[in-house]
Each structure stands twice: as C-alpha cells, then as structure tokens.
C-alpha cells in the first residue's frame, strides 16, 4: 500500500497539526518513546499536548490486550490544546496494540507496524483469528508494514557491536527506537536530543547506547532510502508562535511539584509534603523527595491518615504542611480535614482524581471526587476547593491555594486528575523575581493574645507557633470559644463559630478573581462551563465553533468553593448553559442548587477517558 499518496491524507480543515500515537506492550518502552518525541517536538518549536494511556498493572503478561501501553501527542501550532481526537499516525509494535488502538486511527491515517511481531503467537494472544495484515481489515488505512525487529537486529548488532557484547535480546529491546527514528523522519525532526539521552541513559554500557542509536538512525534512514511517500503535510506543520521566553516541557505532576516548591520559596516556610504511595499521586512524592537537601522535606507516612495528620502537625509547628493522594486516600483523610478546619490551620490537600469508586481504574481519568472535596466531611466544615486545568495551570493553582491557605488560615483542597497529572505541554518559565511574596504574619503581640482572635478583613486567626515565647496556647478539635479558643460547649458560641467558618469562605470569594469568559463570546447562544482537566478540549471546540461564526462562550472554573463572584450575571447572558464534566453531574448539581432558576444542562462522561472535541462539538450544536 506504499503507493497511496499521503500528502492529501490529513484533513484540510483546522490548523496544521498532527496526532501521533505510539502503542505497544508495557515492556516496549512506549512511554519513553513518547517523552522523547515530545522533547524533540518541543525543541522543533511545536505546541503540543500529550496523553500517556497506560495500564495499572506494572507488567501484564506480554502480548495481551490488557498489557498495552500507549502514548498520544498532538503537535502543531499555538492552537494545540488537546492531545487530539483522532490519530494521524499510529505506531503499533504488536498485534494487541493494533487491536486496542486501531479505533483511534482516522480513515486514511498511517499505520506503522512491526510485521515480525505479527506471528501466530502474537496474533493468538491478541485474540486475532486471522492476520489483519492479510484479511483486508486494514484497507481503510495506509499501512507501512515493516520488519522492524529484523531491521533493528541488523543495525544494532553491526559494526562490531555484537562482538562488543550486544546480545540479540539487547537488540530486540531497541526496536522502539527504530520506530521512533522513522517517525522523526516523517516529521523532519532532529534526533540528536534522543541520541544524547540514550548516551546518558546507558552511560555505563556504551555499546548498548550505540546499539540503540544505531536502531534510531536505521529507522530514520529507512524513510530516506525506501520509496516511502513523503508525508508532505506533516512536514509543513505549523510552528508555534509562543510568547518570547524560556520554555520547558511540564506535566501536571511537575506543575504541582514546582508550585509547592515555589510556595515554600515565596512564603519562607519550609515545605513538608506528607504522603502515602498511590497512583497517580505518588509521582508528586517522588518529585519532591528528589529535592530533599534543598529545603524540601518529604515524609512517606504509614497511611493517608498519618500523612494528613503529620502535615497538620507540621503546619501547627509553623511549616507549610501539604498532603497529597488520590481518591481512596482522600476518603481516609476526611476526619483529619475536619480537624484542620476546626483548628484553622493552613494546609494544602492535593487529590489527583482517578476513576473510582474503590480501586476503580487507577490510571484513568475521572472528575468524580468533586462531591467529596466539597462536602465529604463530618459537621459543617466548608473548605476552599480549587481545580487545576492543565500542567501549567497546576503551578498557578498551587500558588493560589498556598496564598489562600496562609492568608485565611484554612486548609485548601486542590483537585488534579489522572489526565492532567501525566499530560505534558510547553510551559514558559515564570519570572521568579516578579512573583509576589506569600506574606506570613508572625508579628503577634503576646499582650492580650488569644489564638482565635481574628483579623477583621480575612477572619484569619493568628498563627502563633511552638517556640514563640508568650504565645503558648492549646488547639483542639473540641469546639473553641470564639476569641479565647478555650473549650466551649456554649450553644450560641457554636452557632457563632459555625457562621464564622462559613463567612471565611465569603471573604475568600472577595479575595479571588470574579467569574470570566475564558474563550469565545461574552454573550450568545451557548455557554459551556467546565473545570479541571477539560479546559483544553473545551477551549479548542469553542474556538472552532467561533471560527464557524457561532456565538459560543467557554467559562472554566478554577475556584469551585467558594464559587466566584459574578457567576449569575454571566450565566444570564447566554440562552443555554452546558456544564461539561467527567462525572455524572456533580458541578451541575451544585450549580442547580445555587441558581435554581437557571436551566443548566449536563454533558457527562464516565469512561475513564477524556472528552474529545467531537463530543463537545456535537453536544453544543444541540443548542444552536
């Protein structure tokens, strides 16, 4: 099928962008390919968004469909805000990867296949009764079926490398880099960054590094020397036109790690990150543990309850206490959050949501912990809840959470999710000198000091910490007398304290920015409201609809509690309002309860997969 023209394969509409998906066995190094291709795309000046899609099992049996790991990336110009609905180039390293990933490939899309893996055993394991390379089932695609394993071996073992100790097994492990080399050729990308990375990665075994580089080069050369139709349009991808500055690739986890570290640097408070391993939140612990020795403390607690309470202890003693987890761990922290709310201590609680309930689908995305974050506590303990809308936004949202936690003396819940956590995008480094301090007030006059005397603007109590003379006091979960903080069972006092805890949220609302339309029209037919990781897909869809002349707007809520000022006014400017979220309607319920006269409509999906542009597009058109 090599004779099919490729130049016209990409859809003519939209901005020039391409979607590549690498798929193979968990042991095939697919995520490595993805991150290398991401890096090279970034260095080539493309905008991008990535979507690693891997199983929860560390190494499921090789060759099975449930052991397939995939990585998708969209590259192109500034307009790239999602990882792409449909795939233009699919690399399938084995039959199982083909079987599970083919549905994402658009008709006419390029399919790169290692024919050596399509043997009887491989086909059987994937559950194929006939060989798809022969039965005509791939006729709708442009198939590049290449003996990648054989060609990799030839390249890897040549030039005396076999003699230098490179085995056939080593050579076989390099076949993912052969495929990457060919993909680099298709997109005219420089492979030197990957070659350099291989050199470092196999620093102790230079012959293995050389074998992998040889495979990478061989894949690239294959494109040149064979009559492979040059994928012209891919070669003329739009380059991004980003703001001047220094950039790096950032995942949502990186955004949280750097954001927490920045919060520490800007506040002068030592960071204490306390956590118990859980997918996908563990990566925050790993990222911060690397910074031990640079003024960051991490604590791997015995469980999530200990993680939350140790963080509370660290805050009580004057540090920046932070605890992070995913859904099931969040449930365990619930009682501790009640204590932090009662004691009015600053604390940041990160929940990287995943598909639930229970173990659910640990590596898959869902936004279904919103109800728990908003309401999952005993007694009335309203807390700020913020959601990060993407990798870069994770950094900013963490800083906002830290500012609110310390300014108002309250725990803040920060929601991320399995999609944002692992997705990567280009991120312009912020100017550290221009970032405002997070002011911590430790000027506390011992004369007349009471732990629950409040600042009249913020309603924050004074944060006196152990070691400060003249300010020794007792905090506790038993209701505290407004002001003195002594134990109080007085009915009126409990009413007053309950009201004060709620009023604090109102003060936080005043402090935070008002609601605004993020993309598209400020008034018109349809407003789509989202929160968290759906921002990219909502924005892309609305931009496309605007380009077609439809009066559509997009509002993305970072602050879910307290909800921003000015919501009702903005809602009033649209004929219909669609609330899009990856759950069965949790924000929708919240908005309906708050604004009963506004007819909201839900757009919901709970499959463990992110929205596609097509899904949003179809839903919004219903209201035109």
């Amino acid at each position, binding site marked *: 099928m090599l004779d099919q023209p490729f130049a016209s394969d990409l859809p003519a509409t939209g901005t020039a962008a391409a979607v590549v998906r690498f798929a193979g066995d968990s042991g095939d190094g697919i995520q490595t390919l993805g991150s290398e291709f991401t890096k090279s795309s970034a260095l080539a000046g493309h905008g991008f968004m990535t979507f690693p899609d891997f199983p929860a099992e560390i190494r499921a049996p090789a060759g099975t469909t449930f052991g397939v790991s995939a990585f998708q990336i969209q590259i192109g110009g500034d307009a790239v805000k999602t990882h792409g609905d449909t795939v233009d180039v699919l690399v399938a390293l084995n039959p199982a990867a083909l079987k599970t990933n083919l549905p994402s490939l658009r008709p006419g899309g390029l399919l790169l296949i290692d024919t050596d893996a399509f043997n009887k055993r491989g086909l059987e394991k994937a559950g194929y009764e006939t060989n798809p390379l022969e039965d005509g089932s791939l006729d709708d695609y442009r198939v590049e079926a290449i003996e990648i394993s054989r060609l990799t071996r030839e390249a890897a073992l040549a030039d005396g490398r076999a003699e230098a100790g490179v085995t056939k097994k080593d050579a076989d492990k390099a076949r993912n880099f052969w495929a990457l080399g060919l993909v680099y050729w298709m997109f005219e990308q420089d492979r030197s960054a990957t070659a350099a990375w291989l050199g470092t990665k196999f620093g102790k075994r230079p012959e293995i590094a050389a074998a992998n580089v040889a495979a990478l080069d061989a894949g690239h050369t294959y494109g040149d020397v064979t009559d492979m139709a040059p994928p012209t349009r891919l070669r003329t991808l739009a380059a991004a036109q980003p703001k001047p500055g220094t950039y790096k690739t950032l995942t949502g986890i990186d955004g949280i790690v750097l954001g927490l570290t920045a919060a520490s640097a800007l506040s002068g408070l030592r*960071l204490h990150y306390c956590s118990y391993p859980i997918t996908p939140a563990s990566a925050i612990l790993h990222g911060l543990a690397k910074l031990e020795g640079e003024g960051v403390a991490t604590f791997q607690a015995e469980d999530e309850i200990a993680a939350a309470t140790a963080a509370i202890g660290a805050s009580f003693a*004057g540090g920046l206490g932070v605890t992070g987890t995913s859904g099931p761990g969040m449930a365990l922290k619930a009682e501790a959050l009640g204590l932090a709310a009662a004691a009015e201590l600053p604390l940041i609680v990160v929940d990287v949501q995943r598909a639930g309930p229970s173990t659910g689908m640990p590596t898959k995305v869902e936004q279904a912990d919103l109800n728990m974050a908003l309401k999952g506590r005993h007694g009335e303990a309203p807390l700020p809840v913020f959601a990060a809308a993407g990798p870069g936004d994770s950094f900013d949202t963490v800083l906002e959470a830290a500012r609110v936690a310390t300014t108002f003396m309250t725990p803040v819940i920060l929601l991320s999710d399995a999609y944002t956590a692992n997705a990567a995008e280009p991120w312009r480094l912020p100017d550290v000198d221009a970032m405002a301090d997070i002011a911590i007030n430790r000027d506390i006059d011992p004369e007349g000091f009471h732990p629950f005397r409040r600042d009249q603007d913020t309603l924050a109590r004074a944060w006196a910490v152990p070691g400060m003379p003249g300010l020794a*006091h007792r905090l506790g979960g038993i209701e505290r007398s407004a002001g003195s903080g002594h134990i109080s069972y007085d009915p009126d006092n409990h009413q007053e304290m309950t009201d004060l805890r709620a009023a604090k949220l109102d003060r936080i609302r005043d402090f935070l920015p008002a609601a605004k339309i993020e993309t598209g029209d400020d008034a018109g037919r349809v407003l789509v409201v989202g929160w968290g990781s759906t921002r990219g897909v909502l924005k892309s869809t609305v931009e496309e609809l605007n380009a077609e002349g439809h009066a559509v707007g997009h509002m993305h809520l970072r602050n879910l509690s307290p909800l921003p000022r000015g919501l009702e006014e903005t809602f009033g400017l649209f004929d219909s309002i669609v609330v899009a979220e990856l759950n069965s309607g949790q924000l929708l319920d919240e908005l309906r309860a708050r604004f009963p006269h506004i007819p909201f409509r839900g757009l919901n999906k709970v499959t463990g997969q992110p929205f596609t542009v097509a899904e949003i597009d179809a839903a919004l058109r219903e209201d035109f």
Partner: protein
Amino acid sequence: MNVMNPDIVAPEADTTTPLTARDFTSDQEVRWCPGCGDYAILKAVRATLADVGRRPEDVVFVSGIGCAARFPYYLASYGFHTIHGRAPAVATGVKMANPDLDVWVVGGDGDFLSIGGNHLMHALRRNVDLNLLMPNNAVYGLTKGQYSPASATGMRSPSSPGGSVEAPVNAAMLALGAGARFVARSADTLQDHLPGVLKAAHANRGTSFVEILQNCVVFNDGAFDAVKDKATGAERTIRVEHGKPLIFGANADKGIHVDWATGTARVVPVGDGAAADEVTVHDQTNLALATILARMEGPDLPVALGVVYHAPGASFTDLREDDPTRTMDRAGLSRLLSAGKTWTVS
C-alpha cells in the same frame, strides 16, 4: 517571609529562675472525675517538666481523644488535642517541622493500642524523638466504659455484657516488638516512682514509650489495686533498675531468676541460705531480658515497673539528611525551574 515587627518586643525567655510545676499549669479547670488516676499523672508530669527545665514555649503536648487525651488543656505549654489515635502521626509532623521542640504525646489504651495502633508502631519503629505517655485504665473511659484492647478477658462492660472473649494486648511487648528503644512502666499513684520514669523517658533521644497503669474510678475501678496497693504492691510488683539485682517483696526476700535456656523467669528466695547468684541483674540494654520482664503479668510473677528496656539509637529527625532549618529560596527556585531541557523563544 517572617517579618518581625520591631514594635513588638517578645518577652525574653527567662532562663535563670528555676521553673516550678506552676509554670506548667494552665488556667483551665481540670475536668476529670474526682478520684481519677489522671490527676496524679498530671501532677507527676508537671513536676517532671519543671525538673527537666525546658521553657514552656519549647514544650508541645499532642494528644488523641479520650479522658487521658485531655492532658494538653491542663498544661501551660503549647498543646494540640487532635483526633482519636492519630496523635503520634501529628507529633511526628511537629517534630519534623521543628526538631528542637520537646514533644510529648498522651493517649489512653484505646487511643494508642486500638484505633492508633498503626501510628504507635510506626513512631516506635522510626524512633521519632517523642515521649509517649499511655495512661492505661484497661477501658474506654470517655465513651462510658466499653472494654478496650487492654481489658482482661471476661470483662463485663456495656459492649461485652457476657464478658469479653478477647485476649488483652500487652503494651510493653507490643512496643518491644515494634522496635521501641525505650519501654517503661509505672502507675498513677506511685509518686515516688513515676517522675523518675518520666525523666528517664525525656532524657532518651528517640521514642520513649511509658505505660502508666491508671485507675478509672467510674468504669474499671480497682483494676490495678493489687499492683498499686501499699500492702500487696510490694509482693505483686518488682521495680527494675539498671545494674541492680531483680529483687522484690516487702522484705526484699524474693528475686527473679531468668533461665536463659528456656527464656523463662521464676521467683527465687533471697537472703538466708539462698545462693545470691541465682538472682538475675537487670540490664536495660538486653532485649531478651526486657521481653521476659515485659511478659511478667502475675499472678505467679510480679509486674515489672521502671525502665524495662533502653537501647539508645539515633532518632528519626537526627537521621534525616536534610538540614531542618533550611527552606527553599528564590535563587534555589530559579535554578530548579530552569533545570532540565529548556528552549528559548525570542
């Protein structure tokens, strides 16, 4: 940024006048039942704090929930009355944030051994520099008298009207099993004994676990009378001291002989006619001996009081490589942000 206002003059810490128990007494009315053993423990704790001489602002009492856990309110130090069972974890966070603080944790047998058993085990294993005080009344006091993990088998209570069928946990054994490096036992009313044990616990730089037999007058009255009573106590308990022979009895006429081959103890007569070398000498660094002593629960063997085990070792915060006073600054942040692969758009 910790900007200090020059107009506010923090009181100079007075380090010259000796502290008294009054300096550690808060203005809060103590709310235990009249006759509760916790009063005596509070008294011993205040005296010990004055004796060891850390400034009240440098002392932190953390507690869980229960009658015993009300301790922090009654001490004029910093205090944090937290949630049921989790005090060791909270205290670990306090100690991480400021290792210079003198951190104490108080909780009942339910707090430490039941809901908080996990945190107890891990604090001990990590050897966090905390003093854990466990008033053990072998009952859930605050929730009105249900049997606890420390209650004797057969105890009748609102939740075990037919008598509990569960075997009680031996707290000292549990602590030793978890890797504790300081395990001691005393009792509320033994005011000639408890302060010394508390002082030794404080001196240990690591987790010190002190079980304090405590009388709950309302729900388990007299549970430890045989042990504490002036008349019977001398026969039913043994006060162990490092380097001294294990001798007890009102007339100091009995000793403990450990048979190392079988790992068992038995009572041997001391004095006229008895061979002196039969009595084992207490070595608080010997884990095998500590285990034998901790296991002695009567009726044929006396209950061991005092420091059963003390094998000093580096504490959690001492072992952590990071300088606990260091905080990331803007320069460090700039370096971190620009680390790794970056590219520039001009």
